[in-house]
């Protein structure tokens, strides 16, 4: 499973030709072979999967047809795609977005064309480009999740990211990601369906994140990604009504950075060994670095990508420079241990 990539002659850290092979390549076991490198100086490993650099796109803020026009998406550490459900979902009514200081509030409601479409469209295209793909999985019930994971089991996706932060009708209207026992059962079931590296994406809207994180790890999760959005809303002072058709939505962007950092840090304190993907409010290399110091092995860029399509790649380059002067941290990342 070696990557057949050409060395980037310009030294831009970008490949000049896409590869059609799977992106999941463990670190080179045989140094000195003529295995071509990706041009990035500092990679990372998350749950056994090598990322070319520690920066990925965050689910729901990347779309290949949109972003692929702006940059070579295969240059990213990884691409986490929009949550896929067993069947196409319509999402929420509009307006779905509102502005807030240093951030946005969104209530898209997981509109997506479903896993079958994903398997014939976005996933093969991303793999053809040579991207490392994290497939984000959505569901309204345990069965939904199980169905999607089963369909993805022998797909070319490099990792699965189970989004347990959406409302789950199986568990009394609350998100399954807020109930440790329900979560333990769900992840255990998904674990039995697929042995693809499985990341569980956690909700910050909980009293005790450590309890939740432990439930996932105990059930067999290979890694955790956090945070998803915080519940929030804005109202229109002319009408007195909520701006979003869904009333409340999820807050993301720089405003949530300190909150996200503390979630990652608390989970890392409690679970020294689980790989963590840090997410929330990252818009520059320094932010990404802060997450690595808080205990993350890799990061994903969300809202910032909506304000400039190339933001995740810019963050990756900025982080690369910062890591150049931090060889110890860079080495830890290479070995898949951020702590």
């Amino acid at each position, binding site marked *: 499973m070696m990557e057949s990539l050409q060395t980037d002659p310009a030294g*831009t850290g*970008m490949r000049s030709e896409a590869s059609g092979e799977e992106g999941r390549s463990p670190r080179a076991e045989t140094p000195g072979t003529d295995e071509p490198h990706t041009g990035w100086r500092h990679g990372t490993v998350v749950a056994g999967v090598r990322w070319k650099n520690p920066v990925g796109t965050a689910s729901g803020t990347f779309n290949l047809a949109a972003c692929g026009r702006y940059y*070579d998406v295969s240059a990213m550490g990884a691409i986490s795609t929009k949550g896929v459900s067993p069947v*196409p979902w319509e999402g929420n009514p509009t*307006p779905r977005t509102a502005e807030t200081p240093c951030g946005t509030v969104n209530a898209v409601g997981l509109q997506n064309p479903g896993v079958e479409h994903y398997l014939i469209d976005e996933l093969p295209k991303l793999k053809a480009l040579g991207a490392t793909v994290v497939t984000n999985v959505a569901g309204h019930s345990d069965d939904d999740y199980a169905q999607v994971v089963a369909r993805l089991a022998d797909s070319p996706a490099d990792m699965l990211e189970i989004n347990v932060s959406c409302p789950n009708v199986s568990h009394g209207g609350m998100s399954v990601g807020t109930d440790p026992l329900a979560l333990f059962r769900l992840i255990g079931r998904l674990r039995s369906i697929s042995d693809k590296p499985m990341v569980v994406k956690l909700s910050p809207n909980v009293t005790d994140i450590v309890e939740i994180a432990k439930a996932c790890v105990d059930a067999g999760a290979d890694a955790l990604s956090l945070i998803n959005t915080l519940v929030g809303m804005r109202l229109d002072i002319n009408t007195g009504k909520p701006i979003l058709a869904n009333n409340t939505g999820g807050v993301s962007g720089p405003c949530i950075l300190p909150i996200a950092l503390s979630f990652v840090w608390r989970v890392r304190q409690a679970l020294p060994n689980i790989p963590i993907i840090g997410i929330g409010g990252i818009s520059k290399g320094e932010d990404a670095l802060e997450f690595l110091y808080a205990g993350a092995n890799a990061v994903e860029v969300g809202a910032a990508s*909506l304000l400039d399509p190339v933001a995740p790649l810019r963050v990756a380059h900025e982080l690369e420079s910062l890591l150049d002067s931090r060889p110890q941290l860079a080495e830890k990342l290479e070995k898949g241990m951020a702590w």
Partner: protein
Amino acid sequence: MDTREYGEVGAKRRQGKTMNSASHDVHADDGGAFLMPRHSAKILSVRELAPGITHLVLEDAYVARHAAAGQFINLYTNDPTRMMPRPFGVSAVEGDAITLIFAVVGSGTLDFSRLRAGDSIDVLGPLGRGFDMSRSARYVLVGGGLGIPPLLYAAQQLMARSDADSLALLGYRDIRYADSTASRYCDAVRSIDESEGNVITLLNRHLGGLDGDECGEGKSGETIILSCGPHPMMKAVAQWASAHAIPSQLSLEARMGCGFGSCVACVEDTVEGRKKVCMDGPVFTADELGWAV
């Protein structure tokens, strides 16, 4: 539909060109492989066209070279606490100068109305699918309020063509801020304000055969309606057009999270399901929207 830009780019990417992202100075000019991401542009002039309506000109060679009528650009305020894009239809292109015309309705448009020549502002675009003006036809530009600006650019482009005519039917709340500009480009301009009626009044009057058709049949005999305005007006225009067996293209508005197809915030229901206004639109045909009764 004008998806030429993106098609070309896709083809070029396959040829192995990449942007120089290490320098973060990404250019996708005609020879480049990728579209230009968010970038800074210089303000050339800002003036009040009518009370509460701003005429803003910025210098952007990339947008000028690539923008098609009906496409829009995102502006971003210079206040870093307000992060979201503000989409505006391109209203005119002259050389490298891009004209936008907008109403001051909130925080961002207020900021923009206060910009001065020499200031800089971030821009992303051109974005979306513009009007399809590929056919030889008489184009009837039906605009309402702040939906008129993108039609002015359509008129500007049609003026240069020998195989097309244009008739502008413009509805205003009060001040007829765009009539004089429209007259420079269009073969005929008729307008109305709320005290008299709306664009449907004008359609009935000038296309409905009641008052006589002031623009004649046009060079090709075919008539196509291009329209932009408030949502209810667009529906009414689509229905009127369909009732008169005239094809119509409607440019829609939506609250946008990104403006380039990533976030799925800006959807509109179509006969093929919920589509992104920013990428699949903002221009849709009445048939696509299922509005052609």
